[in-house]
Structure formats: C-alpha cells, structure tokens
C-alpha cells in the first residue's frame, strides 16, 4: 500500500528520505490538495497503516513535523 509522508520542513523531508532509503521512496512535490508548509513529500510502500506509522515515527527529525496520508488526501496520523 502506498503512503505519503508530508513534512513541515524541508530538512525533515530530506532526513526522512535518507532514513527510509531502504524502501526506495519517491520524493515528490506535496500535492496541491494537501496543505503543508513544506513542498516536499515522501511516497513509500508499507504493508498497512500501522507499519506506515511506525516507519514514519522511526525518523527522529520527522517527530512533530510530519503528517501521514493514505494515497490520496486522507490524513491518517500526525507524526
């Protein structure tokens, strides 16, 4: 399943890209339907929502600065 991690800062986005590199994520512009302070978002695959949240939380720099969306613009969790 595809998930989108949207960030409030570019630095969080780039840090997440490194931490989650083993997932071969895609760095894409934050979709216009989603309001965010940062124009970078990370699209990655995970087995389910729980795993996606766990992966997102594993990025220290993302804590308090990231929001997890399902493919589309449904907000699942704030990291």
């Amino acid at each position, binding site marked *: 399943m595809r998930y989108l991690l949207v960030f409030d800062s*570019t630095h969080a986005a*780039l840090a997440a*890209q490194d931490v989650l590199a083993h997932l*071969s994520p*895609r*760095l*894409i*512009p934050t979709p216009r339907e989603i309001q965010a302070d940062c124009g*970078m978002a990370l699209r990655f695959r995970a087995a389910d929502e729980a795993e996606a949240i766990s992966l997102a939380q594993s990025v220290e720099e993302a804590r308090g600065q990231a929001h997890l969306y399902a493919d589309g613009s449904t907000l699942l969790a704030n990291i």
Partner: protein
Amino acid sequence: MNINAFGKPCPMPLVMAKKEIDAGCKDLTIAVDNDTAVKNLTRLGSKTGLAVSVNKIEGGWQVNLSEGGSNTERSVETLAYLGVDVSVSGSGYAVFIGKDHVGEGDPALGYNLMKMALYTLSESDVVPVSLLFMNSGVKLAASDEAQVVESIEALIDKGTEVLVCGTCLDFYHIKDALKVGDISNMYDILERMQEASKVISL
C-alpha cells in the same frame, strides 16, 4: 539492406540505422520489437528526407527507409493504424537540462529539486517533445537512483524524445552507464531547441 534489431534495446536500432544511412544506404529495412524504435526511426526518416513505411510483423514492426522524400503526416496515420502509440507528445516544447540540480545554492537541495522536477514533468498531461541533457545533466540519464530513471522512462513512454549528449557522457566516463535516452550530439540537441516553440531550461 536488411537489419534485424529484435532484442536490441534503445538506442541500438536507431544507431544501427543511422550508421547505414550515413554510409549512403538509400533503401534500408530494419526490424524492431518496440514502438519507441518505430517512432525514432520514423523521425530519423523525416529528418534525412527518406520515405518511411511501417509494416506490422510477428513480434514487432518492420520499418523501411528509402529514397523518396519525407511524408511525415502519412507516417503518423500509418503508425496509428499499425498499433503504434502516436498520442500527441506535447505542445511542441523542449526541456533542456544542463546540470544535475535545479538552481544554485545548497547542492543537496538542488539535486532533490531536480528529482522532483523530473517527477512532476513525467506526471504532466502535456509532456515535452524533447528532453535534452548536457554537461552534468547527463549524469541523470546514467543515474543509479530508480526515481530519476523512472521519471525519464515515463516521459519516453508518453512520447518524449530523450537526447543525451555523447561528448558529455564520455567526459564524465559514464557512457557505458547510460540507463535511458538516446546518445546524441550538439547538432541534434541544438536542432531540437530550434524546432521547439519554446525551450525550458531547468
């Protein structure tokens, strides 16, 4: 002269055909197994003033280039009839990429911006007719990063012609590492820019 280019990945069929045409061949038939090659060969034909005819054969297409003038419009119909995807490939604009980053400033930011720009371009409805790489831009076409190669491949699937400067690839010693696009030269790259209704430089 007959050439069998089945199994040969891009840009081989074009290279093989160009070689024969440059050597003076006026009647060349080349068999290819992918429609990107058909499109490229058709373009080559109209550029070199050769008549192009395409026939569907088992496993692919047979493209004949022979003396008789260009007939681009008929070629497009022929291609569509034969099942080659001829969806409009853009409003006639070219994108020139002369470096592997967007803007000047922080290198990491610049490189990531380029990744995102290529992605965004590949997702658009109206893709460029030509995507041209020179200097450090050619590194993108030889990239080990899946996202970069994927975006360029998506553009090719949508009809963009991707030209990568051979001289620059050679300079950076990455000619063998080319993952996507056709090896090209200053003449062709400049020509694409002149032909486009606008040129975007990233």
